[in-house]
C-alpha cells in the first residue's frame, strides 16, 4: 500500500513525533501486531518466494531452478489470458459500479428523495451477505430453465441469452460483484458528501449556482479522495477475483475455465495440479502487478490535490 505514504498525514505525523523521545517504547504497542503479522503474512510471502525458485515433480522430486518459473510464467498464454480478462472486468465493471454508487450517494444526499434512509440501508445491505451466499443466490436465479431468467423467458415469451454462457458469464459475475459492493461504495461516497460544510452550499446558492453546478464545483472535488480509494480497492478486488467465479463454476464449468482469473489459475495450479512452485510464481507476479497499478492510480488520482 504505497498509497499511504502519500497521505498528507505522513508529513505532520513525522513532525509531531520528532518532538518525542526516540526509544523502543513504541514496539510495546506495534510488537504484538507485527509478531502475528510476521507469522501469517510475511512468512508465507517469503516462503512463496523460496518456492518460486524451485520445481517439485511427481517423478523426480525437488530441484532448484532459479528464475525458470518466472520465465515460463511470462510466456504462459493462460496467465496472460486471465490477466486480460480481469483487465476487461476492471475496465467495465469498476466504472459502472462506481458510477452507480456515486449516483446513489448524490441522490440520497440531495434532499430530493422520499424515504432516503430506507434507500441508504437497503442498497447497503447486500454488503453484509457473504460472497458464498450471494453467488449461490444469483446462481440459482441465473438458471434459464427454472431460475428467474427462465421465469422471465416463459412469462414474456422471449429468449434472454443464458447469463452463464461463455459470452455473458463475465458480465454475470460483474453483476454479482456490483450487487455486493455498490452499497459499500455508496456509503463511502455518502460519508464524504456529508462532511461538506453547509456554508459552502449557502455561498454557492447565493451565487445562483444550480444543482449540477453545485455537484461539479463542490461535491466532486470533495469526493475525489473517496473515489480514488474506491477505485484502488476495486482494482485490487478485480485482480484478486476468486470467490464468485470459483463458486459459480459448478454451474458453468465450460464458461469459467480453471484459469478464468489469475487467482483462480494460481489456486488450481497448486490445488488440482500440485504445482506449488509455479503457483507461487504466478502469485508473486500478480501481486507485483496489482501493487504497481494501484500505485499509478493513486499517484494520478491525487496529484492535483497535493
Amino acid at each position, binding site marked *: 500500500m504505497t498509497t499511504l*505514504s502519500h497521505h498528507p498525514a*505522513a508529513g505532520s505525523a513525522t513532525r509531531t513525533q520528532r518532538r518525542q523521545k526516540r526509544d523502543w517504547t513504541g514496539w510495546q504497542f506495534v510488537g504484538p501486531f507485527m509478531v502475528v503479522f*510476521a507469522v501469517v503474512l*510475511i*512468512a508465507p510471502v*517469503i*516462503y512463496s*518466494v*523460496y*518456492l518460486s525458485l524451485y520445481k517439485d*515433480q*511427481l*517423478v*523426480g522430486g*525437488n530441484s532448484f531452478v532459479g528464475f525458470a518459473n518466472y520465465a515460463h510464467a511470462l510466456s504462459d498464454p493462460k496467465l496472460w489470458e486471465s490477466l486480460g480478462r480481469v483487465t476487461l472486468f476492471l475496465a467495465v465493471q469498476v466504472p459502472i459500479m462506481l458510477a452507480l454508487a456515486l449516483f446513489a450517494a448524490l441522490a440520497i444526499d440531495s434532499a430530493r428523495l422520499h424515504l432516503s434512509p430506507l434507500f441508504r440501508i437497503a442498497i447497503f445491505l447486500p454488503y453484509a451477505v457473504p460472497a458464498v451466499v450471494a453467488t449461490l443466490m444469483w446462481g*440459482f436465479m441465473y*438458471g434459464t*430453465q*427454472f*431460475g428467474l431468467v427462465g421465469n422471465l423467458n416463459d412469462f414474456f415469451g422471449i429468449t434472454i441469452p443464458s447469463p452463464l*454462457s*461463455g459470452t455473458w458469464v463475465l458480465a454475470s459475475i460483474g453483476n454479482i460483484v456490483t450487487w455486493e459492493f455498490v452499497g459499500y461504495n455508496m456509503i463511502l461516497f455518502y460519508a464524504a458528501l456529508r462532511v461538506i460544510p453547509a456554508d459552502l452550499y449557502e455561498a454557492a446558492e447565493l451565487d445562483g449556482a444550480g444543482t449540477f453546478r453545485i455537484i461539479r464545483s463542490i461535491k466532486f472535488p470533495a469526493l475525489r479522495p473517496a473515489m480514488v480509494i474506491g477505485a484502488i480497492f476495486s482494482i485490487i478486488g478485480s485482480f484478486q477475483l476468486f470467490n464468485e467465479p470459483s463458486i459459480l463454476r*459448478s*454451474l*458453468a*464449468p*465450460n*464458461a469459467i*475455465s*480453471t*484459469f478464468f482469473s489469475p487467482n483462480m489459475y494460481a489456486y*488450481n495450479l497448486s*490445488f*488440482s*495440479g*500440485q*504445482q*506449488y512452485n509455479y503457483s507461487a510464481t504466478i502469485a508473486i507476479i500478480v501481486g507485483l502487478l496489482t501493487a504497481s497499478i494501484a500505485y499509478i492510480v493513486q499517484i494520478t488520482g491525487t496529484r492535483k490535490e497535493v
Partner: protein
Amino acid sequence: MKSTHRTARRVGRTVAAMVTGLCLVGSLAACAPGSAGGAKTGTADDIAAALQEKSTITVWSWGTPVQAAADAFQEEYPNVTVKVVNAGTGSAEYTKLQNAIKAGSGAPDVAQIEYYALPQFALSDSLADLNDFGFAELEDEFTASTWGNVSIDGGLYALPQDSGPMAMFYNKAVFDEYSIAVPTTWAEYTAAAATIHAADPSRYISSDSGDAGFATSMIWQAGGHPYTTENGTDVTIDLQDAGAKEWTEMWNPMVQDGLVSPIVGWTDEWYKALGDGTISTLLTGAWMPANFESGITESAGDWRVAPLPTYEAGEAASAENGGSSVAVLEQSTNKLVAAGFVEYLNAGPGVQLQIDGGSFPSTVADLESEGFLGYESEYFGGQKINEVLVQAAKDVVPGWSYLPFQVYSNSIFADTVGQSYENKTDLNTGLQGWQDETAAYGVEQGFTVNSK
C-alpha cells in the same frame, strides 16, 4: 516517502533474515518423515490383536452409509474409536488429502478415494500397500473390474468399496407418452432423442455439458484404452483410438444438434429437469438409485432401469462410472487397525450395512445374493433393478486403466473438451486439446509421456 533508500535497505535486511529462517521451515517440510511409526506389515492375527487394543482412527468419507458400518465396528471392537469425517466430496477431499500429504501430517488413517483418483495417490507412495497385510487373498471376493482398479503396478492400494457399472435410467412415462421403445443400441437411442426433442423442443433425452467421468466411461464402453502406464512412469495417452472415435461419432451429433440438454449435472436445475420430464434418461453408474430416491421425488414411480445401449445390436457392454475404494494412508500411525477397519468395511459385515444405506457393492457374493437381486424397488415401479445393474457389472469391458495424474487431467476437462460442448464443435478437437494439455502436464511432472 523521503527515505525510500533507507527503508528499502532495512526491509532488505529483514527479508534476508527471514528467508534464512524460512528455508529452515522449508527444509523441515522437505525432511518430514513419511510415516511416523506403527507396524507397516502384519498378518490377520496381528490385525486381530491390534483391534483389541485401545486406539482411535480417523476415516475420511463422504458416503453416508460408512457411519453405520463404523458404529457396528465399534460395537464389535469396543476399544477402537472410529471417527468418520466428511472432508468434502470427491475432488474437494483429494485437495485436502494432497495438502496433508505434501505437509507430511494431517492425513487421516483411512480415506475414501474414487477409482479414477487412486493411481495418483498410489504413485506418490501416499498409500499403504495392502498386500503387506495379506489382503491379496481377498481378490476372489470382488468383481474383476473393481479389483483391477485397486491393483496398480503390482501393489494393492485400496479395497473396492462400491461400484458403478453403467446403466440407462429412463423415465417410462415420457417414453410411453411418445410411444418410444426402450433403446438397446445407440442408433435407437439417438433416434429416440430426435423424436423426443422434435415432439417437445423443451424436452431432451439426456443432458451433457461435458463431464470427464462420463466421457471416459463412454470411451471405456466403446472399447477404448486411451491410457496405459508402464513401470509407473511411462505413460501413453491416445484419446483418438478406435473406442474414442466410436463414441464421438455417435455423440457428436447429439451435442451439435442440441439433442442433449446443456443443463449442468448435479445442479438444482438438473434435479428439477429430471423431476419434471425435461430430461428423460440418465446414463450413469449403479449407485444412482439412492440419489433418485432422495433428490428426484417428483417423478417417483416413473423411472426404470435398462442396460446401457450398445453399438452393435445384441452385444452387451458396460463400463464403470464413479465408484470408490477405501485406502489406508502411509501417514497412518495405526495401520493395523486401519487395515482391520477397511477389511471390515469392504469385505466384512460393513458391506451389507452399506448396501442397506443405498450403496451398490463390488463384492461378488453380495451381487449374486438372492436378497439383493430380488429387491423390488418401489421407486422404480417395483422393478427388480439390481438384476439389470448386476448384469451391467458383469458386462463391464475389461482392461481399462486411468492415468497416474487423472485428478488433474479431469480438472482441465472443461477447459478443453468443455469448449467443444460450449461451442457445439467437434468433440475430437476437444479431446485432442485435452490430450495435449494432459501430456504437457505429465512431462512437466517428470513422466515419460507418449502422446499419440
